[in-house]
């Protein structure tokens, strides 16, 4: 199944709601204030946020004034390409370390879906014949190490785990050591969930980053922030704080299989210039795919029927 089909399927409810609503709303309508207000509402309820919504609506209005949007029927295609443009360029691949093990550090707030996303990423990499070791550096939450260990066994990847309350940076170093000496393709480092306002925990994350770089030059090559797809405007602050402390290179947006639309990624891309790399679209380890702006935008607003 292609990414687009998959995303479309998992966003089905979303798409039904949003695309269905928006199409029914704009069909054959003439452009007037009432229409703009309703478009604005749709964007706001998708967590696009007041600022990005105001901007999008303002540029749509300008396009209408310039004759690019003549009636409600033109609105959906216009919005779809405008949103896609905002989310481009796609950076759907991993930044590989040409000279050795590629290290991917996974971070995020509590309950955002880090461990599950790692399991999915493992499966994704295994399907591409990459050898993988996962490092369980969440030594804080009870049984987090066990949770990742179970996944590692299921997915046939190597595993380095710390004991409870062990120093996560030490576990990270051991894992880097093990990965480098075994010459595996990818090391994925799981970290404890932390709220971005907890300075000591954010410092700990910086330390893990530094320690990895000591053993494997240039590591971590990717630091991916797992953002809960249901997150609201706080997602922006989260991302900003994590980027400051851990040099985040991209996002994994999880839990996009419900009715949430993940609109906050628009603001994140706008203000922080961080790309979404992967999206999690379901419960099973297969429900994971690289992110493409066009596909995402199409899934949100519905396909162009005239095409």
């Amino acid at each position: 199944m292609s990414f687009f089909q998959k995303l479309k399927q998992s966003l089905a409810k979303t798409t039904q709601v949003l695309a269905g609503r928006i199409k029914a709303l704009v069909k054959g309508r003439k452009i007037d204030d009432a229409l703009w207000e309703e478009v604005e509402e749709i964007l706001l309820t998708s967590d696009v946020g007041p600022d990005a919504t105001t901007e999008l609506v303002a540029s749509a209005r300008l396009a209408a004034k310039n004759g690019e949007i003549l009636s409600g029927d033109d609105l959906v295609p216009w919005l779809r390409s405008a949103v896609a443009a905002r989310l481009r360029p796609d950076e759907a691949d991993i930044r590989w370390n040409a000279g050795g093990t590629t290290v991917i550090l996974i971070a995020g707030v509590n309950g955002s879906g880090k461990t599950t996303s790692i399991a999915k990423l493992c499966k994704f990499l295994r399907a591409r014949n990459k050898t993988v070791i996962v490092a369980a550096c969440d030594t804080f939450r009870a049984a987090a190490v066990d949770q990742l260990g179970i996944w590692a066994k299921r997915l046939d990847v190597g595993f380095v785990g710390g004991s409870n309350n062990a120093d996560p940076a030490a576990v990270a170093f051991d894992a880097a050591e093990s990965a480098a000496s075994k010459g595996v393709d990818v090391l994925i480092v799981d970290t404890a969930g932390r709220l971005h306002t907890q300075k000591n925990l954010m410092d700990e994350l910086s330390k893990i980053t530094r320690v990895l770089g000591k053993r494997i030059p240039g590591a971590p090559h990717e630091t991916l922030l797992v953002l809960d797809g249901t997150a609201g405007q706080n997602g922006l602050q989260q991302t900003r704080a994590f980027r400051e402390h851990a040099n985040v290179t991209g996002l994994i947006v999880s839990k996009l299989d419900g009715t949430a639309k993940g609109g906050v990624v628009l603001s994140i891309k706008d203000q922080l210039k961080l790309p979404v790399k992967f999206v999690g679209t379901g419960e099973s380890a297969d429900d994971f795919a690289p992110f493409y702006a066009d596909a995402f935008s199409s899934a949100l607003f519905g396909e162009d029927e005239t095409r």
Partner: protein
Amino acid sequence: MFESLAQRLQSVFSRLGRRTALTESDVDEALREIRTALLTADVHLSVVKKLTADIKARAVGEKVIESVRPDQQVAKIVYDELVRLLGGQPGTISPPNDGGIPIRWSASGPTVILMAGLQGSGKTTTCAKLARYLKSKGHRPLLVAADMQRPAAVEQLKVLGASLEIPVHWEESGRPPKICERAVAKATADGNDVVILDTAGRLHVDRELMDEVRDIAARTKPHEVLLVLDSMTGQDAVNSAKVFDESLPLTGVVLTKLDGDTRGGAALSVLSVTGKPVRFVGTGEKTEALEPFHPDRMASRILGMGDVVSLVERAQEAMKQEEVEKAAEKLFAGSFTMDDMLQQFEQVERMGPLKDWLGMIPGMAPALEGQEVDEKGIKRAKAVIQSMTAEERRKPDVLDAGRRRRIARGSGTSLDEVNRLIKGYKQMKLMMKQLRSDGGMMGKMADRRMRKMKEEQIREMRRQGVKLTEMDWAPEGEP
């Protein structure tokens, strides 16, 4: 990043200038700001619309009260409406946590509490917190591991239960409804008066899992069904809450992860959609971090107005009144030593992360946005004092360059830091000495000035709708 609504309104009304009554256009302009503020706080659009309509109805034509700025007046109206929506009584302040447990108890047999929610909302942690909370109030809870979905979820609850010395019912395999049913029977037999069911996280659109949790409820007839909701959730909170409410006999909501900087507008959305009150809020990683919910505090938070009451409560818990008085006495008597200073630092530390409680001060949250707060500063200052000998702490005058260098090495700080601390200490003593040498005159003046300041602050807070007279935290001897 976040500007408090109060600030936004202030700028609107300073543009509009002074009026005697609020006209419709004044209010409209203010409403735009209110709308943006609420949306930024993740309040659902439908609730925002209703709220702004209510606010408009109340505000238009309202006379501007002498001595109150119109922006403050509008802010007060918004605040009142929020408190009302959140289930509180505007104008009153919720009492400090007094040990009342907001739980509906079973008339006979164990009280069953079912916890449900989306994945990652914090159910397992909240179950452990709730169990600990109830145990501390003299109850005998039984935790039930009914999440057979997530790998190691059972293990997590077992570990938490063991660390809290609370029994956990778990089974190697089996269907959650059966497990829960057996657990309730076990609780009855073992004499546990509360059973807390930790169910798997599930999406509201997952019909199979929603049927399962409905089955659990049907078999265990819970007295409380609490929806665990991540306070960082956006507009989608209403969709999931609605489905949970339709599928389960929901009785309330627990709002988690409020120790971050989220405004938590989702609370408002869920409440207005389901009509179910927020019972508890989770405010930290530790198992103690669970508090009963206070509508007025939540309203302040959503509006970015700070949370004075929680701040005072925290200070009260951390600072022992006698210790504070003793330190003040010593200061005035001139016998304030480095040891006393150390004690002061420790009290400040007990209040938790600096940034947390600074953020509770009205108007501080926006100023702190993106700011680094040096949490380690106090720790380092403590280390400096702790590296001093008993004599040095009593008589800091003996601290010559050699001793200072030793202290810097011993505490892992720099000579500069040591010097700064000693300088701070000396300045404080000097100031007190001057106050004393003025025959008590200056002291009395300083005292009076502080009292005056306090009165002004109180008046200002009253304007914002906070009734301080109902609070018992003013130091003794205050008018």
